[in-house]
């Protein structure tokens, strides 16, 4: 019986088999890249907001403390998003005619809330708590990035679980003295710019971090990487 397939089909079939593996791997790699890219995580992507509020202007320009608006950050899981009243504390006095602020005035007038687009948004099965992070010496900009240089708010990090765990597995790499938590321009200690704390001088982050882990009684790494720490 004559051969049904030409000899060249052998090559084609080999190529297809190996090529298939390659294509599958490639597809997986592409999917992974997309998944981890800002396309999926929104990292670094500014959201359109009803009022073009600038953190840059209010924080570094005017020097307003984070807690002026995010009032419950030290006591609650949720940092709090300011009610219109907070805006109007100042804007009933200044920029009272600015067209840009009309939605704020309207909200105050009509008693209807402003609807902002949420920027740092965790999945619903993650239970993050601001207060404990603040109390253990995790700075605002450690997670939120240079908010004082963000004219439009975007999330700085990917907010993926791997990113959370980076710090939960090695908190000493990120901790800072509690007094510096709200300092947007805080620099980790280097030999050139050491950080003084409790009559001691730390010239590198690791020694400071390890000192703070003890001082702030951080739970062990096994504790803070237990699933139920964040998932309930």
């Amino acid at each position, binding site marked *: 019986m004559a051969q049904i397939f030409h000899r060249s089909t052998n090559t084609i079939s080999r190529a297809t088999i190996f090529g298939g593996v390659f294509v599958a791997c490639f597809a997986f790699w592409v999917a992974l890249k997309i*998944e981890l890219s800002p396309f999926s995580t929104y990292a670094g992507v500014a959201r359109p907001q009803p009022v073009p509020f600038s953190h840059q202007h209010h924080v570094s320009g005017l020097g307003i403390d984070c807690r002026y608006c995010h009032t419950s950050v030290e006591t*609650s899981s949720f940092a709090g998003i300011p*009610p*219109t009243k907070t805006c109007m504390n100042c804007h009933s006095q200044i920029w009272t005619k600015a067209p840009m602020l009309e939605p704020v005035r309207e909200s105050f007038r009509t008693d209807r*809330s402003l609807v902002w687009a949420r920027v740092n948004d965790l999945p*619903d099965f993650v*239970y993050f708590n601001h207060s404990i992070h603040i109390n253990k010496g995790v700075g605002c900009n450690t997670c939120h990035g240079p908010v004082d240089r963000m004219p439009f708010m975007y999330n700085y990090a990917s907010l993926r679980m791997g990113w959370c765990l980076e710090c939960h597995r090695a908190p000493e790499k990120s901790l800072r003295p509690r007094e510096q938590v709200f300092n947007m321009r805080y620099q980790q200690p280097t030999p050139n710019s050491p950080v003084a704390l409790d009559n001691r001088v730390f010239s590198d982050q690791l020694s400071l971090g390890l000192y703070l882990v003890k001082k702030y009684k951080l739970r062990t790494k096994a504790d803070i990487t237990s699933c139920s*720490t964040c998932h*309930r």
Partner: protein
Amino acid sequence: MLFTRSGEPRKQKKMEDRSKKSEEICPGKKGKLDLVTVRQQLDQAHGPEYWRSLEELAGSREFREMIDREFPKGASEWLDGVSRRGFLKLMGASLALAGMTACTKQPLEPIVPYVKQPEEFVPGRPLFYASAFSMRGYATPILVESNLGRPTKIEGNAQHPVSRGGTDAFAQASLLDLYDPDRSQTITYLGAPYPWSSFLEAFRGPLASQKALAGAGIRVLTQTIASPTLADQLQAFLKLYPSARWHVYEPVNRDNAYAGAQMAFGQSLETQYKLDQADVIVSLDADFLAGGYPGFTRYARDYASRRDPDKSMNRLYVIESTMTSTGAKADHRLPMRAAKIEWFAHTLSSLLAADTGARTQLTPEEATFASALAEDLKAHRGSSVIIAGDNQPPAVHALAHAMNQSLGNVGQTLVYTDSVSASTVNSTDSLRELVSDIRRGQVDMLIILGGNPAYDAPADFGFAEVLKSTRVPLRIHLGLYQNETAELCHWHVNEAHYLEAWGDGRAFDGTVSIVQPLIAPLYNGKSIYEFMALLSGGSEASGYEVVKGYWQKQHSGADFDLVWRRALHDGWIRDTTFSPKSVKLKAGSFPETTAFNPTSIEINFRPDPSIWDGRFSNNAWLQELPKPMSKMTWDNPIYIGPAMADRLGVKTKDLVELELEGKSLQVPVWVQAGQPDNTVTVFLGYGRKRAGRTGTGFGFDSYQLRMSAIQWFASGLNIQKVSGAYELASTQGMQSMDAEIGRRPLVRETNLDKYREEPNFAQEQEPIPDQTLYPVLPGWDYSQQPYAWGMAIDLNACTGCNNCIVACQSENNIAVVGKDQVNRGRHMHWLRVDTYYQGERDKPRAFFQPVPCMQCENAPCEVVCPVGATVHSTEGLNDMVYNRCVGTRYCSNNCPYKVRRFNFLRFQDWETPQFKMMRNPNVTVRSRGVMEKCTYCIQRIAQHRIDAERTDTPIKDGELQTACQQSCPSEAIVFGNINDPNSKVAKLKRLPRNYSLLGELNTRPRTTYLAEIRNPNPRLKQSEQS
């Protein structure tokens, strides 16, 4: 000895099984329980010492299967008709898409701040408000958790002098009623929606014209009212319209109790028991250890406080006509038909009076019981108490009063006070009067404030027919639901839920609680206070003005604001508790006992343990709550004792026709161990026609047989077996744990004497700690951690009231699944209360055992999970990670306690907006294909841990409570840090009666049990126990 019954009889049983196998292939016999066979098998072989259902007792194959399976048969099968082709399509599609599931892009979400944030509101932290939940006029003080203005959980008010932190299942579940989408949402006239202004217009005219007649044509019908404000409003109204009448109707009323007090003392009094002072408690058909009984939360606590075998224990005798949870807790239980209890009471009374007594309808066995009981009572003068049930006739109450008086118990173990209810008129007579007035055309305006008399009025009144007729020109109904009564009224006004309105109420001891609203009325409902203000004043007033105004009038001092604020904060008003009244027994003897025919069948009507008189028909949490003794959900079969079922030739799920005084009803049968012979019990509240989407059409309307003359029991019932069977969804026997006979039983108990001889009896076969070669977390020592969470459940204290199940359901966003799914064993309760029976089928002893996740240190579920979705935390908790779970169900297959629940379908309602508001924001709402189980309320642990770390103080013992523990009225559940030797839980775990369930499997469970110790009367012991 009880526990060492060897495996020998079991072997005999197994051989028998094998020889029977060929017979059992016969399809006719398959899968059905034949009671004749059961009895034969029982005669020949011994089943397990403790059994959960009659099937288990008989060692049926069906039951054996149930033990071997992780879920009951049918739970894990795809049951909807799907063709092979369709199945393959689905499989192909799911394979192709399997990898894509992780690639969902998170949707963009808005975030909405306040315009002006209310003071004290901290987003992310709940607030608690003190309030009260009222049922039958009795208030249960509560604290309501509010998350950003949404009430999400009801807790007991631990600081309240009455409840001290406990609640009942009804109070817990009332939260679901608030968010029930089937609640009435508008005012309607003949079914069509109308605005409030139209109602006012239509209402004011006729009201004004009644003014001239002094209100002669006005009738107001309410349920039992104990609210002081409301009583005042009603009196004001009656002053304004002197000829108007106020009627009270309550289907599950306390008429007999008031009539009994009237008979004994010449006045309607409330009896308050002080069970913590009682050494001997006698219940004459009183189910005082079950939710719904006035003062239940306090009674359960006081009863349990005297069940510590290391201190002085009380002794409970229960003589009852239905198997109840109170009977299950009894040290001595005597099943007896309801009519005979009066004879028993007479006998007891004459025995106490050292009179031989001629009233001897009792059998020799019952007479022995009575004389032993009388001796025990005589030995405990001043420290005993006799409680008569509300379903017993007034004479029994009067006898109980007389006996308590003669035993010197008054002032010691019980006190008499004014009645909590504002009106003690006989509920049935009151409604009868109203019906006859309507028939005579004397009623121009009928105002029904709450309740559902068209459904639950005595059948012989024909209340629904009377309403339907055109004799009353204006009928108005105020209610939470568009129910059977609303349908027959012209106007229906949607009522505000108690969590939406101001009000007040009295606890069983008279203490007043202010009811404060947690949320603005979801559907603009009107409260009964606002309605009454309209009725008496003619003008609109807010509930706040009415209630506060009333209390302002009661308080003469200038510091009213302080008093008011304190009352709102504490949850009760100081100095409102009733003071005991001194009473004198009326001279003269009590009426002669009524004769009964012991061979005729007696029917007992009882409020349903879950949905009460039908008012909670549309509450799915309560509908799906397994009833304490039968574990029945969603239905009300009649309960028949095994011996009687044999005689009638009926078995569970058979349909029978009941006939009583010309009325008939077809109902299914449930064979209930412990039901007295020749009696049947049927629960009220089912067979609703207009309850809502949840409650309509479930069960059978037993009110159709309930007549005004026979409210609670009657003889002369005819039972006829009819063809057909009816599916009943009982969880009895589902999730049964496997304890081979010869191994130590799952529930461990003994009596006080034996316990004193051998206190360690429960720890027999307890494994030596740390027997494993493969530690869960290598190098990890739980005992070195600051916290290691554990739980101890005192079987002696648990009364099987089911409150913990609803508390858990509410706290942890647990879905309900419906009757059909329960039948397939797919119910989702994280916590179940197992009921075990022991002894004779007709006179069993019964035990309750709540089973949450054991949080095994050496958890069998963890090692089999292929994706690490269930793993250990450093504090020893067995964490469940929903977002990792892929639904292999290996874990539940490997769980010896069968506490894992799987979302076979998407049981959660994601669409209904009301339910979104109800859920606990700190617990993930699970979806289909995810395993779940008790987490020890990990969200509460996390919150307390964070708060403790922030303030750098350790979590104090007792500060962190799980939902089940918080609401347990008898404090049976204790949770805490076992690494703290001074914590309550650590102390309990050191007691000799502490044992672990299936501990021999070396699972090292963190939840352990304190064995049950009964305190039988030595004189009765021989005759009762084998």
